[in-house]
């Protein structure tokens, strides 16, 4: 019976060639668009996330804000606050080496880079600009910010009294590698530094305000003496950040942890709504394809009332008759979505080549998402079979005597 249902389904489809071809074309284009769209969105988002967090820390260990405990400054001088409030200490991580050692044991962490950060001003001649001083261990920071690659002028490296400054700051102060500047901090410390190189982190604010220097002079300038402001962490899988952050939090409960997701909530919600609209489009394409198949099969039932009637009269069961139409739906769905998948992957390939040849005009490439393609093919196939349910029921309801009586 099943074999016969297959045979009849095939013959029916072959007999109404034009209808079959048209609906196959419809399914093909629907599925191709679905696959291309999903690949495009996936590629676009991956690219956007890479650009956002690729050269930035994924997880940051920050110090807990200190509750004011005394009115005595560190240095020992007793100062009564003018406004009567107790002295608030700079938040910092004191025992960072042990914390770092714990982090180093985790295999999913690519790099953990200690950071000594604070405000300062940079002077060249009469020009003064306020900057963010970032004292780092160069090799570690390089693995997060890719400073070597991103140094556009001069030598990528810091140590002793050499620094790296941003492109916009350099322009503003007319600084070139080799120039000497003075850096002062609100703590009242100052020092003379040599500009070693100029970096471009593709972010105007950062390029105008960040100054990378070695961790040792940063301690001196910011009065931090061996403590650090935070530990910046990069991990292999950016989307595991929340999970890893929770695990780190359990290991070092004394420090709060921040993830890139928390810091880029807006980007993430934009990505989510983008995904949502892409899903919505795909759902509507799926509905259109399904309705197309259903309507073709309903017409096929109407056209073949007599044949269905006689098949039932000579003993084909309702199960067999429904199978004929379900199989037709399945064949249309599978063949259509298979050719749609091939066509969609071709579209993706085409886009990749156009993007590669565009010379950066299309600043991202898309990857073929085989899992998504398979999912789409499976869903379309299933939907097509479901689309055949209503025509199949129509065929089941048909009474052979009605057909025979009415000729």
């Amino acid at each position, binding site marked *: 019976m099943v074999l016969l249902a297959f045979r009849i389904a095939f013959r029916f489809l072959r007999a109404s060639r034009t209808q079959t071809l048209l609906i196959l074309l419809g399914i093909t284009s629907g599925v191709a668009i679905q696959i291309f769209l999903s690949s495009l969105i996936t590629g676009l988002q991956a690219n956007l996330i890479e650009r956002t967090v690729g050269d930035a820390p994924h997880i940051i260990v920050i110090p807990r804000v200190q509750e004011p405990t005394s009115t005595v400054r560190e240095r020992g001088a007793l100062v009564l606050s003018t406004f009567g409030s107790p002295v608030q200490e700079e938040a910092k991580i004191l025992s960072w080496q042990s914390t770092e050692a714990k982090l180093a044991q985790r295999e999913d962490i690519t790099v953990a880079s200690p950071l000594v950060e604070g405000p300062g001003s940079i002077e060249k001649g009469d020009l003064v600009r306020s900057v963010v001083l970032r004292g780092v261990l160069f090799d570690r920071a390089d693995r997060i910010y890719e400073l070597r690659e991103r140094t556009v002028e001069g030598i990528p490296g810091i140590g002793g009294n050499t620094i790296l400054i941003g492109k916009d700051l350099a322009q503003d102060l007319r600084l070139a590698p080799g120039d000497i500047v003075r850096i002062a901090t609100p703590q009242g410390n100052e020092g003379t530094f040599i500009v070693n190189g100029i970096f471009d982190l593709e972010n105007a604010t950062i390029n105008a305000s960040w100054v990378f220097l070695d961790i040792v002079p940063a301690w001196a300038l910011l009065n931090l003496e061996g403590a650090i402001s935070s530990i910046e962490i990069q991990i292999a899988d950016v989307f595991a950040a929340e999970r890893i952050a929770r695990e780190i939090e359990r290991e070092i409960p004394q420090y709060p942890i921040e993830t890139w997701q928390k810091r880029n909530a807006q980007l993430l919600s934009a990505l989510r709504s983008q995904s949502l609209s892409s899903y919505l489009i795909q759902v509507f394409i799926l509905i259109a394809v399904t309705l197309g198949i259903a309507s073709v099969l309903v017409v096929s039932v109407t056209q073949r009332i007599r044949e269905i009637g006689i098949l039932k*009269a000579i*003993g084909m069961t*309702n199960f067999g008759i429904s199978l004929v139409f379900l199989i037709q739906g399945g064949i249309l769905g599978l063949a259509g979505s298979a050719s749609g998948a091939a066509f969609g992957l071709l579209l993706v390939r085409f886009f990749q080549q156009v993007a590669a040849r565009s010379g950066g005009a299309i600043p991202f490439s898309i990857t073929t998402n085989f899992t998504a393609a398979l999912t789409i093919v499976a869903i379309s196939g299933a939907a097509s079979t479901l689309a055949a349910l209503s025509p199949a029921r129509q065929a089941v309801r048909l009474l052979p*005597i009605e057909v025979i009586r009415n000729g």
Partner: protein
Amino acid sequence: MDKHTVVLERVNKVYGTVVKTQVLFDITLTVPEGQFLALIGPSGSGKTTLLNIIGALDRPTSGEVFIEGKRLNDFGEEELARFRNRFLGYIFQFHYLLPEFTTLENVLIPHWIAGGKRTREVEKRALYLLERVGLGGAAHKRIALLSGGQQQRVAIARALMNAPKLLLADEPTGALDTKTGEQVLELLGDIRKEYGTTMIMVTHNRDVALRADRILELVDGRLCKEVYPQRVGLTEAAAILEAYECNIEDAANELTPKGPSPSTGNLHKRGSKNF
């Protein structure tokens, strides 16, 4: 005693739920194995409905139907379908062949429905049946390329494929010209004799009916006349058919007071126990 292929017990058929139309009244009837029975009657007399009930295509509103000893009332839809496939062969006014399949494949379809494979023996049988109906050369032709008479002959071969116990024919020559119709009837007669198959044929054509072993005429849903043409002779048989009066008594009784419902106590005995 002869084996009975068909036994009907007080079969009634009412169409419609709001406006009820009764088309068959208390039909009680037996058809012995191997008999060729012609059902005749004016249009609307219920002969096709009766044939469909015997053919397990329709169910009676009340009464029992036994075919080949099986009580059809007990069967569900799918069981009925399997029963039709296994025991019955149909020839309709229109052939209803599947144009998507070749002649040979159309003949094989009942076998496929039964779940059979396309073995060499099966194909040989189908080819033999096609040859028997004179279409051995058209086995691999498309149905659309055959003439009306040829198509009806393919339908006969298809009806015979599963070696049915009972052949049901509803105006099998209705859509054919006289000459072709004649050939088809001859063929049916020959095949029936050859296999000893019971056959019930609905026709409005008396000449066709006179070829049968037995003729039953229905009038307004009741059995009215019964004739055995070979026993009484064709002239006498034709005369009985011409006559106005019914020769089955209780049907005649009921004809005069028009339309008593079968449930309001009727005097119906088994109408035709004359074998």
